[in-house]
């Protein structure tokens, strides 16, 4: 587990400094904005649009990131669930290039323009997690100059523009976002200061690295920003998390968590010019009926909410006698409190459409060795799914599928090892059986009835490209096929053929629930037939696969 939580305690005062720093930045940008910062937020009247992009790769001179796309997914889920962004007004780009980014931005601008024409006030959120270097965002092999992005945002036909850039630096020994030490882009100078109506948050200051954490399953900055938006940042306790609250929370936690890292402390930056729009509510915890309430009488201190995968999805720094709300998505979470000499661990079920009250007295004492987050960190890197499959196999050659290897339905079981070789690579193991009845129709022999059967075992390696709940994939597979036929007439001998078959697999995995996935898949395989003659044959398989992640 990361030792971040302990640092957070030590850095409890850091948000105050961060807030002052943010205010100083804001004052430089716009004094009227500071005056309006304490006015009521306008979240309820804003038509919000969001462009969320995550890219694990940043060109050949950078090392792939592990969690940029995950961070983007989390932010997309959060903004559409709690941030007032309708799903139709949100675009999630995963591993897309700069051209796709600008196209998506144009589409949102077009929608925003239409909204403005209807007299609506509009806001545009742009979130990016990935590489940045030499003054440009690195979206895979493509680049998007930061100045160009800022100008584009400044010109966007919306009333408020908020850019959150969780971008990378390099050179540290720990997991950092980047490949080499390079001057950081400074959002607090240059074009940022000229961009009125634009708020820009970055995950790190100039010459700093932005760092990822395996224990958190994401970058420190995005994790704390998301955790803050779920409720931890709601210092006022009014059930709404504003931009300033979110930033100050993310700042404090990020600095605390990274203070002792080999890459050095990471200081998020904030450039502010809301041009009279005042503070802005980013998430409204009251919009969702479901969630978790930590009652006022629960002990004060830090609470960590851990999902079944072992990831800390939210944190809460609770004061004494203060009720706090955490807008967790429906599901089961382990809740951890860290005391000086032990842990207090409990479990809570957040039901859909209901508010759940945390019962801290039901927690149990546990030694530090039972830390649920620590266990998750050790397991992180590879995970299994197990499933059942049903499909159909048929050879391309008509004569073959009519008189030799018949078309058959297949039923089987599969196991998949995810992220073993590298992230989003899936090593699959499958076995299936199928059979059908047939009758010989050969030039000199017609009529003998038989039972045709296939046993199909294989292993595959596929690469996935998750986009939201859908993960298209393509890969290779090697199978071992055993085909046989047994004749009703004992005068004809049973026959069998076995062969190794290489092939390709492609399809898409759809996440039905947190643990259940449905995969639609096509395979194209090659088979060398060697008995009557040497023949190169091809066959296809269509299948649906339902998998469960324990």
């Amino acid at each position, binding site marked *: 587990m990361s030792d971040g939580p302990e640092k957070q305690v030590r850095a409890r005062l850091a948000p105050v400094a961060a807030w002052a720093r943010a205010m100083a930045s804001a004052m430089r940008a716009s004094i009227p904005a500071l005056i309006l910062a304490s006015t009521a937020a306008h979240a309820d009247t804003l038509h919000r649009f969001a462009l969320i992009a995550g890219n694990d790769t940043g060109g050949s001179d950078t090392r792939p990131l592990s969690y940029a796309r995950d961070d983007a997914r989390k932010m997309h889920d959060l903004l559409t669930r709690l941030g007032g962004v309708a799903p139709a007004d949100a675009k999630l780009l995963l591993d897309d290039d700069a051209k796709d980014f600008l196209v998506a931005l144009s589409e949102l601008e077009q929608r925003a323009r239409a909204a403005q024409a209807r007299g609506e006030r509009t806001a545009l959120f742009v979130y990016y997690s990935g590489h940045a270097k030499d003054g440009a965002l690195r979206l895979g092999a493509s680049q998007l100059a930061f100045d160009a992005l800022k100008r584009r945002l400044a010109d966007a036909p919306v009333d408020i523009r908020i850019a959150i850039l969780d971008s990378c630096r390099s050179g540290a020994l720990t997991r950092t976002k980047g490949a080499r030490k390079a001057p950081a882009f400074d959002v607090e100078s240059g074009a940022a200061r000229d961009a009125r109506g634009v708020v820009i948050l970055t995950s790190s200051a100039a010459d700093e690295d932005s760092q990822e954490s395996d224990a958190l399953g994401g970058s420190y900055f995005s994790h704390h920003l998301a955790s803050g938006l779920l409720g931890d940042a709601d210092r006022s306790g009014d059930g709404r998390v504003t931009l300033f609250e979110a930033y100050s929370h993310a700042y404090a936690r990020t600095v605390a968590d990274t203070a002792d890292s080999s890459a050095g402390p990471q200081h998020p930056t904030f450039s502010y010019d809301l041009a009279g729009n005042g503070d802005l509510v980013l998430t409204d915890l009251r919009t969702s009926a479901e969630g978790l309430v930590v009652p006022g009488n629960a002990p004060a201190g830090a609470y960590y909410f851990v999902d079944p995968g072992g990831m800390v999805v939210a944190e809460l720094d609770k004061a004494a006698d203060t009720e706090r709300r955490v807008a967790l998505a429906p599901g089961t979470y382990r809740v951890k409190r860290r005391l000086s000499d032990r842990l207090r661990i409990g479990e809570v079920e957040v039901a859909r459409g209901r508010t759940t009250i945390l019962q801290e007295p039901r927690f149990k004492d546990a030694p530090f060795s039972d830390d649920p987050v620590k266990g998750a960190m050790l397991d992180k890197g590879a995970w299994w799914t197990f499933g059942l499959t049903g499909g159909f196999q048929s050879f391309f050659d008509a004569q073959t599928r009519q008189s030799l290897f018949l078309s058959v339905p297949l039923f089987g079981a599969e196991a998949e090892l995810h992220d073993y070789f590298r992230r989003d690579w899936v090593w699959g193991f499958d076995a299936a059986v199928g059979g059908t009845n047939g009758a010989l129709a050969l030039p000199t022999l017609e*009529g003998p009835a038989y039972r045709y059967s296939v046993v199909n075992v294989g292993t595959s390696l596929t690469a996935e490209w998750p986009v939201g709940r859908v993960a298209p994939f393509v890969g290779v597979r090697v199978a071992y096929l055993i085909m046989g036929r047994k004749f009703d007439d004992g*005068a004809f*001998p049973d026959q069998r*053929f*076995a*062969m*190794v078959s290489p092939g390709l697999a492609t399809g898409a995995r759809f996440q039905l629930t947190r643990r259940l996935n449905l995969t639609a898949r096509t395979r194209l395989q090659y088979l060398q037939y060697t*008995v*009557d003659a040497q023949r190169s044959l091809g066959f296809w398989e269509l299948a649906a696969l339902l998998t469960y992640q324990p």
Partner: protein
Amino acid sequence: MRKLALALPCLLAVACGGDFSNDDLEFQNALPQREDLAAKLPDSARSGQGLGTRGQRLGASQVLGGTSQLALQAYQAGTQFNTSVDGLLSLLELFRNAPPTTRETDRRIWGPFPADEHPGHELRFVMNRQGDSFAYLLQYRPQGGGEGAWWTYLPGTFKADGGIRKGTGTLALDLKEARKNGFDTKEATALDRLDIDYQTLALPTNVELLFTGAGATTPLTRYASRQTPQGLGEMAFRLPGVDFVPGGLMETLDILARWTPDGRGVLVLNILEGDAKGAQYTECWDARTRITFMQRNWDFLNPTEGSRATCPDVSALDPQP
């Protein structure tokens, strides 16, 4: 786990191949089975009750209500027929369900294998296909002999008509060639060759056995069997040199026997040569092989005994127009 992933394909590669072959099935379909060639005898005949001796004199035991010696003679002929067929087909059993050793286009070869019953020899079975016609050879050669040393003990042919062993075929046992190559033909020393012609294409199916005696140029004895899917059976055979009628000459008999599955039957005997040349005798029997009807064409006073209505209907075996 990575080592396992590498080892597994290697193991599977070794376990590749098989006998999944359409052509093999077509070749195998060209070989006759026992049920294609064997005469269908009634249960009473198979139980072997009261099989008489060959060549009993006409009139000695032909009594209405008495046991039909001719029926037993016909069943005995059928049993011997089947014994001969079995002996010949047993030579093919080794190859019937075994995958061939060599597969070539329109050709399959089983062997060479050591010939256990003929020490010092090895055997092989060769099948060739030309269109829908198949020819096969069971061959032997002295162990270590070259390609030219193979000699054929059992030749056969089959012309397929598309169904399961439907077609016309021939099968032979060359005993003369076997003896020439040092084989002991045991009780078949009096024969040079046994031929089988059969057709399973149309009903009734028929099989013909031709025995060629040692030194003879034409077949000595002919047995023919026909049968229908309903279980009617027919045995036609010629018996030369039988003292069937009192007198100085030996008779040559031409016998046509037909029976039903429950053992009733009708037999027509023609004397082709001998003391009563041209005579014809007809006899019917019941399920217990007792004579129910007799007809003699030479007896003007009492040509028939019993009722013709007791004869079973075996007209399904009559030649179709």
